């Protein structure tokens, strides 16, 4: 199953974070709120968090859910989620 999650960087620190269903931002992709289909609510929550200055540079990414594990589709987002490969 593929869907979308919202990601951003924490404004104060810069750390990569993912939006959870509870409206928190988690450093762990596995905590992310996976939305399949209409993603307008995800977009709204993400931009609200930007306005609140919790995060910066928010956007949606495509992820795949395999055996209950979320995995980003693009190599770029996989590296973002896991950290540098070197």
């Amino acid at each position, binding site marked *: 199953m593929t869907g979308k999650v919202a990601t951003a*960087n924490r404004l104060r*620190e810069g750390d990569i974070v993912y939006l959870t269903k509870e409206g928190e931002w988690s450093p762990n992709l596995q905590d992310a709120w996976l939305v399949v289909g209409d993603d307008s609510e995800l977009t709204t929550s993400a931009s609200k968090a930007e306005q609140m*200055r919790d995060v910066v540079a928010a956007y949606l990414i495509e992820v795949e859910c395999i055996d209950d594990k979320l995995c980003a589709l693009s*190599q770029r987002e996989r590296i973002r989620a896991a950290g540098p490969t070197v």
Partner: protein
Amino acid sequence: MYRYDEFDRALVLERVEQFRGQVARRLSGELEEEEFKALRLRNGLYLQLHAYMLRVAIPYGTLSSQQMRKLAHIARVYDRDYGHFTTRQNIQYNWPKLVDVPDILAELAEVEMHAIQTSGNCIRNVTADHFAGVAADEIEDPRVYAEIVRQWSTLHPEFSFLPRKFKIAVNGTAQDRAALRVHDIGLQIRRNSAGKIGFEVMVGGGQGRTPYIAPTIREFLPKQHLLSYLEAILRVYNQLGRRDNLYKARIKILVASTGVENFTKLVEEEWAEIKGGELTLPEDEHRRILDYFSPPQYQDSNGASKTFETHKTWNLDFSRWCKTNVVSHKRPGFSIITISLKPIGSAPGDASADQMDVIAGLAEKFSHDEIRVTHEQNLVLAHVCQSDIYEVWEALENAALSTPNIGLISDMITCPGLDYCNLANARSIPVAQNIAKKFEDLDRQHDIGELKIKISGCINACGHHHVGHIGILGVDKRGEEFYQITLGGSGAEDAALGDIVGRAFGYDEVTGAIETIVDTYVTERRNGERFLDTYRRVGLGPFKEALYGTA
């Protein structure tokens, strides 16, 4: 060594406090990200793939031990214990927190460093040969002119909103170690037949998506006219350079579209109006800056070169390192040491905080308190007495800094690529690591000889792939990493852009492809030819055939 004068110190401190206020206003919501972004970029702060990234200027790539210790301290306290030395003779920190950046900048200011001018459409920090002032065959010290240009251009009202960023390099020896022909302006110091000193002026080089080798627009510019001539070039650019399209805004595009002859004519006309005016370099000002760069007081040591030679015969590892990493100095009995930041399997250009401290200590004790950064992402101790070289080597050996590979295949330029960079298509660092491991055997590296591999993770070409003897460019094919290989480029005095060899290779294929290319060279080469010479003689044919089975 150069020290900031009072004006600069006040300016830098003022900027730090300004930025502190801007960060506070961003956090309190008075500033939107759009507004803040422009401000943080002017202070060298980017938002990268994983985190913020701070780019700190190292003017003409020279650091004191105290400054190096400060860089180590910042890595340790505010970052993840390392920094990355880049091809633009800057250092980048990959993990600073926004809230810490004002403090980092204040700490840098304590040692007369800053991050100003490392971004934005202004004249970027001016670079020079990393062997400036010590190279045996130097005409004049290029740093003097780099500094003159820096003082003139810093915050020059007319040139702080150019169509695009602008990069200048200066070189003072026959060997071009400053990559002049891939800069917006390259200045080669020359002596004319009358014995006068001046510059060959090259304009419109660059890399990125439309690479150009800069043509020469003036064979000889008497040195007192440097600034008026640069001003003329910049005025023409400011008037005619395209501002409508980011990719067409560099001066290289203007020079190419106007034609070299026409462009030269426009510059000369503009120059005729200002030549001999207030921009003429006054002799006393020239002297004043020259004094900043006066050579250190060398203490000769009796029998220095004899001790050096003895150690070389005793110790094979030491003698191998000397062969690649030690070169001769203006002053007999002294040498220039290049410290490789390319240990096999590490990220090219990275140095840990502890390594920075070791190097600072060595510079203080053995090299007149001075460290230089090369555009090939290595560090230099420029004034080491030959009787001390062995001791320096031992200390480097203990800090994993004695890799004997300068100029060899494992001494690659590599951009951060997809492991760190927001704009990347593909990873660069692990590609370099895999190649280095493949060619780990030092005898093999020496047999291959001078071979410069340069790797960029996207077409912006931060890794100089266009001018690699072998260039590797990361491209994206439907979300997968691929690598396009070019052959025959050079960023040196024999500058050229590489030719694309054929279809791109996948991540797992690229190391094998490089080995095929190197083996083909070894088969084709004639008595002592470098890779580049063989390529220029035989062309793409044999390499294509070996890689793809077609001639």
